[in-house]
């Protein structure tokens, strides 16, 4: 729609901002992207997200929406073409459940594997593998969690395919096990290669270098 102002406050390496970029791309919504310096947050960010002071924030006609999954729902309800969530209330509840599972279970375990060492690291990696295996059960034999096309859970979880593999390389752990979770492994490939989504993903080598930097700091602090 012309005349509407849509702004996204994000950070290039933020997977949560990537979720929003994907949704905006799928809905063919034109927007202005504002790159935030997370070490030096702009007055704009602090004004638009005073409670959490985090990215991403979507600003639509001057009105801010924060929290990536909430932003996805807002986008889906405001621009109704190319739906992200299913129509059926039970299917919607399932999609919300799995998106929540990703944030509450999969992500913390992966982060824990990244920030810890030794036994703690291995324990976290094992938990991450178990949680990813559970996530796979929701995919079943479908091409995408959304069925034949990308949906809410695909947008919520797709970034893990890139990030988890970076964690695997840096921290020397196994997270996405191709043998024990073949369907999920194949899905990661599929979602990250999907034309509309692929062009939004940050370059792997830049992300790897960025993550290595973090890892050095985190592990130096604990040794």
């Amino acid at each position: 729609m012309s005349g509407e102002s849509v702004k996204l406050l994000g950070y290039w390496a933020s997977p949560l901002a990537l979720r929003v970029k994907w949704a905006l791309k799928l809905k063919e919504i034109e927007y202005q992207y504002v790159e935030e310096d997370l070490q030096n947050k702009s007055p704009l960010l602090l004004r638009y997200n005073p409670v959490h002071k985090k990215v991403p924030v979507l600003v639509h006609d001057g009105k801010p929406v924060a929290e990536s999954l909430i932003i996805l729902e807002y986008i889906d309800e405001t621009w109704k073409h190319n739906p992200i969530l299913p129509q059926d209330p039970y299917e919607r509840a399932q999609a919300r459940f799995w998106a929540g599972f990703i944030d509450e279970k999969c992500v913390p375990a992966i982060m824990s594997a990244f920030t810890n060492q030794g036994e703690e690291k291995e324990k976290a990696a094992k938990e991450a593998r178990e949680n990813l295996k559970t996530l796979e059960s929701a995919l079943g034999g479908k091409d995408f969690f959304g069925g034949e096309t990308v949906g809410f859970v695909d947008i919520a979880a797709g970034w893990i395919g890139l990030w988890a593999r970076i964690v695997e390389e840096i921290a020397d752990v196994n997270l996405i096990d191709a043998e024990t979770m073949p369907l999920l492994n194949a899905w990661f490939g599929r979602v990250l290669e999907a034309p509309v989504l692929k062009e939004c993903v940050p370059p792997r080598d830049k992300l790897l270098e960025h993550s290595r930097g973090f890892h050095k700091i985190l592990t130096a602090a604990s040794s």
Partner: protein
Amino acid sequence: MADEVVLLDFWPSPFGMRLRIALAEKGIEYVYKDEDVRNKSPLLLQMNPVHKKIPVLIHNGKPVCESLIALQYIDEVWNDKAPLLPPDSYLRAQARFWADFVDKKIYEFGRKIWTTKGEEQDAAKKEFLDCMGVLEGELGDKPFFGGETLGFVDVALIPFYSWFLLYEKFGNFSVEALHPKFIAWVKRCMEKESVSKSLPEQEKVYDFVMFMRKKLGME
């Protein structure tokens, strides 16, 4: 076909209370099943194999887990009466944001007030009370977060009031003294039968937690 609704719950759970309130607001008949969370039923384990937690809403045999997700499900299916979320997508996003805030902050800091000591407890107390202030700001002059009637945020938040006696005794503070506007909102909510019948007495919650603490050797 008549709807069959079952709620797997545990009487002191604020998350379960949310669903009790919503079902009452919408006039939905349901079967209430109280779980012994230390001895979970086969039904609970079957209906929520991922988290094994209550509450679980079972509608015609199909489970919906996670209280805020179940609230939205109830609102979408029984959309003819007492809407919890407004029609406007921006206001819906705001309601979801504040319900998420309640989950991230009120529950966590409240829990820390009665499970920690010293500096950690002081920090939790301060954060909890700060949240009361932030919520008062969000409420503004409205009678409810939902406007003229109970909405999504009201239903998400009011159950924690049943745990306030516990927080206040352990934290040694009075929410009413520090945040009277918040308590005024509480009182408006409690005037609704759907709320007053869904929340246990504060003393009952307090006695239960004290009993559990003794049992777990925390005293």
